[in-house]
């Protein structure tokens, strides 16, 4: 479903060139649960942002469902983000002035779904995350774990092809972190495709496949052995 061919991302500031991704080739199929590991500054976030169409590669090819995404314009990329991806960030990235349900509704707003259907779907997604009683709370009235669950509900609500999570447990204590990972495991068992970025080997063990990158290059790509 996702296929990267010799994909590079180079940041150049004056004479300084930072090669964040160096000729990466990779494919991820539907239904996979992939963890991307690597030290800080190795290019994990850069990779995820390019996969999620938030950023574009300097060169190389990116095929999504067989289509070459590299030639898409901003509006087409916005539509791809809306329809194909659900994002979960380390810092939650909820809109502080909106209630939980309004936050979850947003992807449906931009997808053009009607108000009534939108509300129903958003409530269903929140209930799935065990937040049925927190629908009208604002992010500041929720714990970190609850906020991250709202963010997951928002990522799921438009039934994306891929869920992209960049260190989703990074801001949480280990107990809430484990709860969030249980949710990802459950989502995977329901057939969702998940790409997860993490530092933490214990978090990465929830995945089925583990890719390690260093200095913008893949150094290993292996099945996760069950304990």
């Amino acid at each position, binding site marked *: 479903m996702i296929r990267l061919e010799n994909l590079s991302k180079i940041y150049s500031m004056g004479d300084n060139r930072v090669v964040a991704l160096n000729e990466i080739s990779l494919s991820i199929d539907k239904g996979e649960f992939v963890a991307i590991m690597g030290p800080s500054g190795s290019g994990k976030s850069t990779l995820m942002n390019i996969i*999620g169409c938030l950023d574009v590669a300097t060169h190389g090819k990116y095929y999504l469902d067989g289509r070459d995404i590299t030639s898409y314009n*901003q509006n087409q990329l916005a539509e791809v983000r809306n329809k194909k991806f659900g994002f979960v960030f380390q810092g939650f990235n909820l*809109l502080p002035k909106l209630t939980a349900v309004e936050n979850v509704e947003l992807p449906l707003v931009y997808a*053009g779904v009607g*108000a009534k259907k939108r509300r129903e779907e958003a409530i269903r997604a929140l209930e799935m995350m065990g937040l049925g009683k927190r629908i009208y709370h604002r992010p500041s009235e929720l714990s970190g774990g609850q906020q991250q669950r709202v963010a997951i509900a928002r990522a799921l609500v438009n039934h994306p092809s891929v869920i992209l999570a960049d260190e989703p447990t990074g801001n949480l204590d280990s107990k809430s972190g484990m709860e969030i990972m249980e949710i990802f495991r459950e989502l995977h068992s329901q057939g969702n495709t998940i790409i997860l970025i993490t530092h933490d080997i214990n978090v990465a063990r929830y995945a089925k496949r583990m890719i390690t990158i260093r200095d913008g290059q893949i150094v290993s790509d292996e099945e996760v052995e069950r304990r």
Partner: protein
Amino acid sequence: MKFTRAIRMAISSILSNKMRSFLTMLGVIIGVTAVITLIALGRGSTQRVSSQIESLGTNLIIINITGGRNRSVTQEDLQRIKGISGVSELAPVLSGGVTVKAGNKNTSTSLEATTPGYQQVRNTYVQLGRFLLQNDLDMRFRVAVVGVDVADELFGRRDVIGEEISINGVEFSIVGILEEKGSSVAGSDDNRIIIPLTTGQRLLRSTEVRTFYVSTLSPDVVNQVVGEIERFLTRKFNDENSFRVFNQTQLLSTINEATATLTMMLSGIAGISLLVGGIGIMNIMLVSVTERTREIGIRKAIGAKKRDILVQFLIESAVISGLGGVLGIIVGFMGANFLSRILNIPAAISADVVLLATGFSVGVGIIFGLYPASKAASLNPIDALRYE
């Protein structure tokens, strides 16, 4: 994204920062208030002036002889003019400023020496006593009809029929009191004295009639009668620049020209104040875009297109500005009524000004919001998300 939702979003964003939104609106509020107030008072006073001119009678023609010293019309000329078809009445007038005395009180006032026809031509009637009669003119009686201000000034009362007054040192007896008219463009209509033409010619030491009023049978024949009079006088003086003929339509069109100028000036003020308000809005919207960079990034990450963000910020600035416009209209309404009472000028607030002010303020919001909104819309999603 739906329009109503966008508006609701804009309103909740405005409400979430009430003080700042209010200060942003202030420029527009002040501008619109000024425009509404000034236009209401301006229109109110021109309406009053026009209605005063209309009350002169729509079939009044005023003729002034302007040329050289010995130019004047004779009794014969007046008879000829009165004979023009369509003319119903004519009144020659000799006027001047005089000093009037009664007992130990004196006052200065304007004097008009005329004929009985004046009554109908100028729509000026007595409330007490009688007006001038032909006999007064024939016998050169020293009788006077006075306005209420003159009576008040000299006697402190109004039932002064039969009282004696001295005009420029000559004794007159009061035979009539004029109806109260109130003040007009030309000053008070109640501060004057009317005496017979023949008596006046002696008093003012002038026999030259250089002003006369003509009334027509109907307003429709005014132009035709004006033409006849002009032809007659041109033939008489052999010079078309030695006299002036006015009628009401001309006076009204002069007033309308003045109104148009006033409106232009007010529009200029409106334009400048809305411009200043618009710059204020642009400034705050730019700050707002910077502050909300992360929000824009989040919205873009979950699928907002350029147009969605553009519309969101445009609507927000249009709503701020439009709301400022509405508040300005309300304050302007109150301001116009307040000043109208204090300055004793009528206020006329009309729907077109209100609609225009609303439209303009929303337009200003859109125009000045365009740059900040397009700046927001063209943010790169990943840069916006990373923004701290």
